[in-house]
Protein backbone atom coordinates (compact mmCIF):
# COMPACT_ATOMS: atom_id res chain seq x y z
CA UNK A 1 0.00 0.00 0.00
CA UNK A 2 0.94 3.66 -0.11
CA UNK A 3 1.66 3.87 3.58
CA UNK A 4 1.71 1.83 6.78
CA UNK A 5 -1.80 0.97 7.84
CA UNK A 6 -2.78 0.12 11.42
CA UNK A 7 -6.07 -1.10 12.80
CA UNK A 8 -8.02 -0.42 14.84
CA UNK A 9 -7.18 3.24 15.33
CA UNK A 10 -8.69 3.14 18.81
CA UNK A 11 -9.35 0.24 21.14
CA UNK A 12 -10.93 0.30 24.57
CA UNK A 13 -10.79 -2.97 26.44
CA UNK A 14 -11.48 -4.24 29.91
CA UNK A 15 -8.64 -5.25 32.16
CA UNK A 16 -7.87 -8.94 31.72
CA UNK A 17 -9.08 -9.20 28.12
CA UNK A 18 -6.84 -10.07 25.18
CA UNK A 19 -6.36 -7.64 22.30
CA UNK A 20 -4.92 -7.92 18.79
CA UNK A 21 -3.45 -4.98 16.93
CA UNK A 22 -2.80 -5.18 13.22
CA UNK A 23 -0.15 -3.59 11.02
CA UNK A 24 0.01 -3.65 7.23
CA UNK A 25 3.44 -2.34 6.13
CA UNK A 26 4.43 -0.73 2.87
CA UNK A 27 4.49 -3.31 0.11
CA UNK A 28 8.00 -4.63 -0.44
CA UNK A 29 9.39 -3.44 2.88
CA UNK A 30 11.16 -6.34 4.51
CA UNK A 31 11.61 -4.80 7.95
CA UNK A 32 8.75 -4.15 10.37
CA UNK A 33 8.89 -2.62 13.84
CA UNK A 34 6.53 -2.21 16.76
CA UNK A 35 6.98 0.61 19.25
CA UNK A 36 4.72 1.98 21.94
CA UNK A 37 4.37 5.52 23.20
CA UNK A 38 2.88 6.34 26.55
CA UNK A 39 1.34 9.77 27.09
CA UNK A 40 3.99 12.47 26.78
CA UNK A 41 6.79 9.93 26.49
CA UNK A 42 9.22 8.85 23.82
CA UNK A 43 8.96 5.71 21.77
CA UNK A 44 9.70 2.38 23.45
CA UNK A 45 10.93 -0.42 21.20
CA UNK A 46 8.94 -3.66 21.36
CA UNK A 47 9.86 -6.01 18.51
CA UNK A 48 11.54 -6.03 15.08
CA UNK A 49 11.06 -8.37 12.12
CA UNK A 50 13.51 -8.52 9.22
CA UNK A 51 12.77 -10.86 6.35
CA UNK A 52 12.98 -14.51 7.36
CA UNK A 53 15.32 -13.87 10.30
CA UNK A 54 14.28 -14.60 13.86
CA UNK A 55 12.58 -11.51 15.26
CA UNK A 56 14.29 -9.29 17.83
CA UNK A 57 11.92 -9.58 20.78
CA UNK A 58 14.19 -7.86 23.28
CA UNK A 59 11.77 -4.99 23.90
CA UNK A 60 8.67 -6.99 24.78
CA UNK A 61 7.86 -6.00 28.39
CA UNK A 62 6.41 -9.32 29.52
CA UNK A 63 5.33 -12.73 28.27
CA UNK A 64 1.82 -11.33 27.88
CA UNK A 65 3.07 -9.63 24.73
CA UNK A 66 3.67 -11.51 21.48
CA UNK A 67 3.79 -10.68 17.81
CA UNK A 68 3.89 -12.51 14.54
CA UNK A 69 4.39 -11.58 10.95
CA UNK A 70 2.72 -13.77 8.37
CA UNK A 71 4.09 -14.16 4.85
CA UNK A 72 6.61 -11.40 5.40
CA UNK A 73 3.85 -8.81 5.30
CA UNK A 74 1.05 -8.20 7.81
CA UNK A 75 1.93 -8.27 11.50
CA UNK A 76 -0.25 -8.79 14.55
CA UNK A 77 0.71 -7.68 18.05
CA UNK A 78 -1.20 -9.58 20.74
CA UNK A 79 -1.49 -8.52 24.35
CA UNK A 80 -2.98 -11.12 26.68
CA UNK A 81 -4.65 -10.38 29.98
CA UNK A 82 -4.35 -6.63 29.48
CA UNK A 83 -3.40 -4.41 32.39
CA UNK A 84 -3.97 -0.68 32.85
CA UNK A 85 -0.26 -0.01 32.38
CA UNK A 86 -0.60 -1.38 28.85
CA UNK A 87 -2.57 1.74 27.89
CA UNK A 88 -0.54 3.56 25.26
CA UNK A 89 -0.33 4.27 21.55
CA UNK A 90 1.10 1.29 19.69
CA UNK A 91 3.02 2.35 16.59
CA UNK A 92 4.09 0.18 13.70
CA UNK A 93 6.76 1.17 11.17
CA UNK A 94 8.43 -0.39 8.16
CA UNK A 95 11.63 0.16 6.18
CA UNK A 96 12.91 -1.26 2.87
CA UNK A 97 15.54 -3.34 4.71
CA UNK A 98 16.75 -3.61 8.27
CA UNK A 99 19.11 -0.70 8.84
CA UNK A 100 20.11 2.69 7.56
CA UNK A 101 16.65 3.94 6.63
CA UNK A 102 14.21 6.29 8.23
CA UNK A 103 11.04 4.64 9.45
CA UNK A 104 7.65 5.08 7.84
CA UNK A 105 5.20 4.96 10.72
CA UNK A 106 1.51 4.21 10.76
CA UNK A 107 -0.90 6.44 12.66
CA UNK A 108 -0.93 4.03 15.58
CA UNK A 109 -3.51 2.23 17.67
CA UNK A 110 -4.54 4.01 20.85
CA UNK A 111 -5.18 1.30 23.44
CA UNK A 112 -7.07 2.14 26.60
CA UNK A 113 -7.45 -0.51 29.28
CA UNK A 114 -10.26 0.24 31.75
Amino acid sequence: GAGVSQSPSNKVTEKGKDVELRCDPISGHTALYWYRQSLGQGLEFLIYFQGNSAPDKSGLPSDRFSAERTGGSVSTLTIQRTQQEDSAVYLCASTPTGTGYGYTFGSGTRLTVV
Partner: protein
Amino acid sequence: SQKIEQNSEALNIQEGKTATLTCNYTNYSPAYLQWYRQDPGRGPVFLLLIRENEKEKRKERLKVTFDTTLKQSLFHITASQPADSATYLCALGNTNAGKSTFGDGTTLTVKP
Protein backbone atom coordinates in the same frame (compact mmCIF):
# COMPACT_ATOMS: atom_id res chain seq x y z
CA SER B 1 23.04 2.16 29.90
CA GLN B 2 22.28 4.02 26.69
CA LYS B 3 20.81 7.44 27.21
CA ILE B 4 19.46 10.05 24.80
CA GLU B 5 18.70 13.58 25.97
CA GLN B 6 16.86 16.17 23.92
CA ASN B 7 17.20 19.73 25.11
CA SER B 8 14.33 21.04 27.19
CA GLU B 9 10.93 19.58 26.76
CA ALA B 10 9.66 22.76 25.10
CA LEU B 11 11.14 25.46 22.91
CA ASN B 12 9.29 28.68 22.02
CA ILE B 13 10.54 30.97 19.28
CA GLN B 14 9.29 33.82 17.13
CA GLU B 15 8.32 33.28 13.51
CA GLY B 16 11.21 33.89 11.12
CA LYS B 17 13.89 32.94 13.65
CA THR B 18 16.04 29.82 13.52
CA ALA B 19 15.04 27.01 15.85
CA THR B 20 17.88 24.85 17.15
CA LEU B 21 17.13 21.54 18.83
CA THR B 22 19.76 19.40 20.53
CA CYS B 23 20.14 15.65 20.84
CA ASN B 24 22.87 14.35 23.16
CA TYR B 25 23.65 10.73 23.80
CA THR B 26 25.84 8.63 26.08
CA ASN B 27 27.00 5.02 26.13
CA TYR B 28 26.20 4.66 22.45
CA SER B 29 28.12 4.59 19.18
CA PRO B 30 25.45 5.06 16.54
CA ALA B 31 26.09 4.46 12.87
CA TYR B 32 23.39 6.96 12.00
CA LEU B 33 20.98 9.40 13.56
CA GLN B 34 17.48 10.30 12.47
CA TRP B 35 15.12 13.21 13.13
CA TYR B 36 11.36 12.92 13.06
CA ARG B 37 8.43 15.29 13.39
CA GLN B 38 5.36 14.25 15.35
CA ASP B 39 2.05 16.09 15.44
CA PRO B 40 -0.56 15.37 18.15
CA GLY B 41 -2.43 12.14 17.54
CA ARG B 42 -0.23 11.14 14.63
CA GLY B 43 2.72 8.83 14.09
CA PRO B 44 6.20 10.32 13.71
CA VAL B 45 7.19 11.46 10.23
CA PHE B 46 10.76 10.89 9.07
CA LEU B 47 12.67 14.08 8.18
CA LEU B 48 16.40 13.41 7.84
CA LEU B 49 19.01 10.73 8.42
CA ILE B 50 22.69 11.52 8.90
CA ARG B 51 25.44 8.89 9.05
CA GLU B 52 28.44 8.85 11.37
CA ASN B 53 30.83 9.82 8.56
CA GLU B 54 28.71 12.84 7.61
CA LYS B 55 29.10 16.15 9.40
CA GLU B 56 26.08 17.96 8.03
CA LYS B 57 23.00 17.33 5.95
CA ARG B 58 20.42 19.77 4.59
CA LYS B 59 16.91 19.52 3.25
CA GLU B 60 15.09 22.71 2.31
CA ARG B 61 14.91 24.78 5.55
CA LEU B 62 16.26 21.94 7.67
CA LYS B 63 19.88 21.32 8.64
CA VAL B 64 21.27 18.53 10.79
CA THR B 65 24.78 18.23 12.17
CA PHE B 66 26.33 15.15 13.77
CA ASP B 67 29.40 15.34 16.01
CA THR B 68 30.45 11.86 17.12
CA THR B 69 33.19 13.29 19.34
CA LEU B 70 30.77 15.47 21.30
CA LYS B 71 28.09 12.76 20.96
CA GLN B 72 25.66 15.39 19.80
CA SER B 73 23.36 16.26 16.94
CA LEU B 74 21.90 19.68 16.28
CA PHE B 75 18.71 20.14 14.27
CA HIS B 76 18.06 23.58 12.80
CA ILE B 77 14.91 24.97 11.20
CA THR B 78 15.61 28.27 9.47
CA ALA B 79 12.99 30.92 8.76
CA SER B 80 10.65 29.10 11.12
CA GLN B 81 6.90 29.23 10.57
CA PRO B 82 3.94 28.52 12.88
CA ALA B 83 3.34 25.39 10.78
CA ASP B 84 6.68 24.07 12.07
CA SER B 85 5.16 23.78 15.55
CA ALA B 86 5.33 20.11 16.53
CA THR B 87 7.33 17.66 18.63
CA TYR B 88 10.67 16.67 17.15
CA LEU B 89 12.27 13.35 18.00
CA CYS B 90 15.81 12.17 17.46
CA ALA B 91 16.63 8.49 17.12
CA LEU B 92 19.92 6.60 17.02
CA GLY B 93 20.50 3.49 14.98
CA ASN B 94 23.21 0.95 14.32
CA THR B 95 23.98 -1.32 11.41
CA ASN B 96 24.08 -4.44 13.58
CA ALA B 97 20.71 -3.86 15.20
CA GLY B 98 17.59 -3.00 13.26
CA LYS B 99 15.89 -1.11 16.06
CA SER B 100 16.50 2.58 16.68
CA THR B 101 16.47 4.19 20.12
CA PHE B 102 14.37 7.34 20.43
CA GLY B 103 14.68 10.40 22.61
CA ASP B 104 11.67 11.81 24.43
CA GLY B 105 11.33 14.71 22.02
CA THR B 106 11.31 18.50 22.13
CA THR B 107 8.06 20.38 21.56
CA LEU B 108 8.64 23.41 19.37
CA THR B 109 6.16 26.28 19.28
CA VAL B 110 6.65 28.99 16.68
CA LYS B 111 4.69 32.11 17.50
CA PRO B 112 3.48 34.48 14.77
